[in-house]
C-alpha cells in the first residue's frame, strides 16, 4: 500500500481550524517527481477560494520533490498530463477555472507511450 502523508496548507501566516481534505494521486510515472508516492491526502484551509492555479502552486511548493518543469509549464500542467477531478476529465469541469472543493479527489496522470 502506498504511504499516505498528511500535509498542512500554509500559504498565509494565518491559521484556521476548518480545513478541506483533498486526496491527490499521481500515476503514469508522475509519482517519480513526488518522492515515489502515488497517494497523498492533504489539508487545505477552506476560508478562502482556492483556484486550480493556486492548487498547482501549492503542490509545487509543498510536495513536488524534483524537476518542476516536468510537472508545470506556462502556469498549467505540461503537455501529456491528464487531470481528473473526482474521476472525470478536468476539461468537463472547467480545467484551470475549477475551484477546489472539500473532499475533492484530484488525479494527475502522465499518459504512457510505451507499447
Amino acid at each position, binding site marked *: 500500500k502506498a504511504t499516505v502523508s498528511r500535509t498542512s496548507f500554509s500559504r498565509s501566516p494565518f491559521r484556521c481550524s476548518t480545513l478541506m481534505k483533498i486526496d491527490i494521486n499521481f*500515476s503514469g510515472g508522475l509519482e517519480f517527481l513526488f518522492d515515489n508516492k502515488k497517494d497523498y491526502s492533504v489539508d487545505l484551509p477552506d476560508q478562502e477560494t482556492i483556484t486550480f492555479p493556486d492548487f498547482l502552486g501549492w503542490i509545487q511548493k509543498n510536495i513536488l520533490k524534483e524537476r518542476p518543469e516536468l510537472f508545470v509549464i506556462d502556469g498549467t500542467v505540461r503537455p*501529456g498530463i491528464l487531470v481528473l477531478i473526482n474521476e*472525470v*476529465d478536468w*476539461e*468537463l469541469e472547467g480545467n484551470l477555472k475549477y475551484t477546489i472543493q472539500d473532499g475533492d479527489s484530484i488525479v494527475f*496522470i502522465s499518459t504512457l*507511450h*510505451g*507499447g
Partner: protein
Amino acid sequence: CPFSEHALNNAQIRRYGRHLILPQIGAAAQARICAGSVLVIGAGGLGSPVLQYLAAAGVGRIGIVDDDVVDETNLHRQVIHSEAWLNRPKVDSAAHAISQLNSLVTVETHRCRFDVTNATKLSEQYDLMVDCSDNPATRYLASDTAVRLGKTLVSAAAVGTEGQLTVYNFRGGPCIRCLFPRPPPHQTVRNCSDSGVFGPVPGALGVLQALEALKILGDFGEVLSEKLLLFDAMTCSFRCVRLRARMPDCAMCGSGRGESAEIQEDYISPPCSITAQSSGP
C-alpha cells in the same frame, strides 16, 4: 440481399462456433469480423496479443507494420515471437505465427516504420487501425491519419507496471489532439527499454485492444470512446474515467482541420531516442 453479410462458409461456422452461439455476437457480427480488415501498428508487447486474438477470432485481413527484428529482451513479453525468430523481422515472425494459428486469415506484412511517407497509403487499405507503437511521434501520426481517413483507432500503451487504453475517432468521438493538443516534452517520455515493463501489463492491454477492435468490427457492445481505462498491475486494479467529447477547436479533427504546420513537427522522433517503434512493451 440483406443477409449476404451473414454468409459464413462451413469452415468458418465450425471454427467460430463459440462466437456464433453467443447472443451478443452471433452469425451477423462474426461475418462482419470475417469480412473486416485491421492495420496493427507495431508487433511488440501490445501487438503480440492483439495479433493473436484478432487472428484467432477470424479477422479477414490483418496488416502488420513494424521495422524491427526480434530481440532477446523482447521475449519476456512479446509472446507471438519465439527463439527461432531471434534477429529476424518481427513482421515475418508474427505473420508465421498467425498462419499457424488460423490459415483462414490473410496476413499482409509491411516491414517499415509507420511514418509520414507511408501512413496514409498503409492505413487506407484497412477498416480499422490499432496502435501498438511505443513513441509519441508514431502515436500522433496514427491518430492524425485516422482522422484524415475517417478511421477509428484503438490505442493502448504500457510502461513499467501501468497501462492505458482508449479508442480515438469513433463515431464523432475525440482524437488524441482533443485530449493532448501537443505531444509531451521528449524528456518526460518513458519507454520500455529504459524504464522496463512488467510482461503481462502490455499482455493484458493488448488483449483488451483486440477485444475493442472485434466489438468495433462486429458492431456489438459499447466501445471505449470518450473513456480511458487505466490499469495498475501492482494492485491489479482498473479504473475507467470519462473523457471530454471531441473538441470543436481541435487542431486536427476540429476547426484546425489538420492545416497547422506545427502538426508535422510532432511526427519527428527526437534523434536521441532512435528506438524502433515496437521495441516497447
